[in-house]
């Protein structure tokens, strides 16, 4: 998972997640408000450059991560560029071009806002932020367990695939299907065993029914939030100025 690796390697990793989230949310709201292509382009530039230059996210990972959503964008826009005319003949049409242009730029700006956040903030820090924002406890517990077990299960999955490959389990299409099915079935059964083991381990540490963790302290949080808010205001000003 490229995002995960980039986030832990980021030089903004230990910046208060609240500040980074504030900046990203301001970027998203500004992108929603902005109307003209020029304003959206300015927002895209600001959001991307912040991630690439200020937070020093490697350009290569940035592009690799942005490619799948860009594929979706391309496909959807091409779909909108094709349609019937009044006579029911299908061909390329520019009727929706303004909508397409606006939607594409808005999507890019918001994608840049999202990437700026997730490429500098490891998911556990975001979960801690969600905890502070009073997300329902049950959802948080599911997220915490999901995050940790994700890596445990993926490692188990990869090791099993390797073991199956060693016994020629992926020689051809048919065998690949059979092997994947067997493995997924065995792992599905493991879900219960692993859950039971975690329950026992939690009970051993006086589990009281909810997963409680100590919040991290960010000594610089206040200063960082102010900076983020100011930068956010710049983006909002661009967007609001554009509407007026």
């Amino acid at each position, binding site marked *: *998972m490229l*995002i995960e690796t980039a986030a832990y390697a980021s030089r903004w990793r230990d910046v208060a997640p609240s500040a980074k989230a504030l900046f990203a949310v301001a970027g*998203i709201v500004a*992108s*929603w408000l902005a109307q003209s292509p020029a304003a959206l382009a300015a927002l895209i530039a600001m959001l991307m450059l912040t991630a690439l230059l200020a937070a020093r996210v490697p350009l290569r990972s940035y592009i690799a*991560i942005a490619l*799948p*959503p860009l*594929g*979706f*964008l391309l496909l959807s826009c091409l*779909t*909108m560029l*094709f*349609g*019937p005319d009044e006579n029911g003949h299908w061909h390329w*049409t520019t*009727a929706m071009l303004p*909508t397409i242009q606006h*939607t594409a730029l*808005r999507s*890019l700006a*918001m*994608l840049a*806002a*999202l*990437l700026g956040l*997730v490429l500098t903030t490891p*998911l556990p820090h975001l979960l801690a932020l969600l905890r502070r924002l009073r997300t*329902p406890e*049950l*959802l948080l*517990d*599911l*997220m915490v*367990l*999901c995050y*940790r*077990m*994700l890596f*445990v*299960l*993926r490692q188990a*999955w990869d090791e099993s695939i390797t073991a199956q490959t060693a016994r020629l389990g*992926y020689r051809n*299409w048919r065998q690949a*299907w059979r092997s*994947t*099915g067997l493995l*997924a*079935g*065995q*792992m*599905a*059964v493991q*879900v219960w065993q692993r*859950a*039971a083991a*975690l329950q026992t381990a939690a009970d051993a540490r006086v589990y009281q*029914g909810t997963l409680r963790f100590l919040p991290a302290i960010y000594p610089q949080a206040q200063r960082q939030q102010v900076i983020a808010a100011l930068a956010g205001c710049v983006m909002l000003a661009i967007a609001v100025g554009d509407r007026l």
Partner: protein
Amino acid sequence: MHIMEGFLPPVHAVGWAAASLPFLAWGLRSIGRDLRAHPERRMLLGVAAAFAFLLSALKLPSVTGSCSHPTGVGLGAALFGPAAMVPVGFVVLLFQALLMAHGGLTTLGANVFSMAIVGPFVSYGVLRAAAGLGLSRSVSVFLAASLGDLATYVTTSVQLALAFPAAVGGFSVSFAKFAGIFALTQVPIAISEGLLTVLVVNAMVRF
């Protein structure tokens, strides 16, 4: 197929979020009640969510180049009931947005509606109907998983068509276009999903 970050206009994004919220609240309440009787279910759903995420990030043989697909949601609906799958699906979709940039935060509501609400409910309904008709286990599991998957993608096409009606022909033409384009990837995925779920369920009942 997840709708990417920022693709939906604000009204639609907020609208779909508002539509999903009651289901999420209902799902949480339903799990909460269940947890009072079976506290160990909390861990179970957490691990199940991780497993669903893992399967959704999986590249299946024969469907190269496809990105994420809702594998496991149909299976989960059969095992835990559709209500529990709303919060689990929510977590999986949030993680896909945050860890893989598949989908997004502003489109989370719309994606939750198609993938964590419509998908599981259709799967569950098909499973019940198939049981009523007395179909074999493999057939009913295949139908449940693949129809749940198809329903998800039809819902996504509806969401896109509502947001971007065609200049000529409006919603119905736009729906036809989106559904047609995405069918190229989604129909093979739905079939794979059905096949894999059958293999998984057959392997599970033997353990």
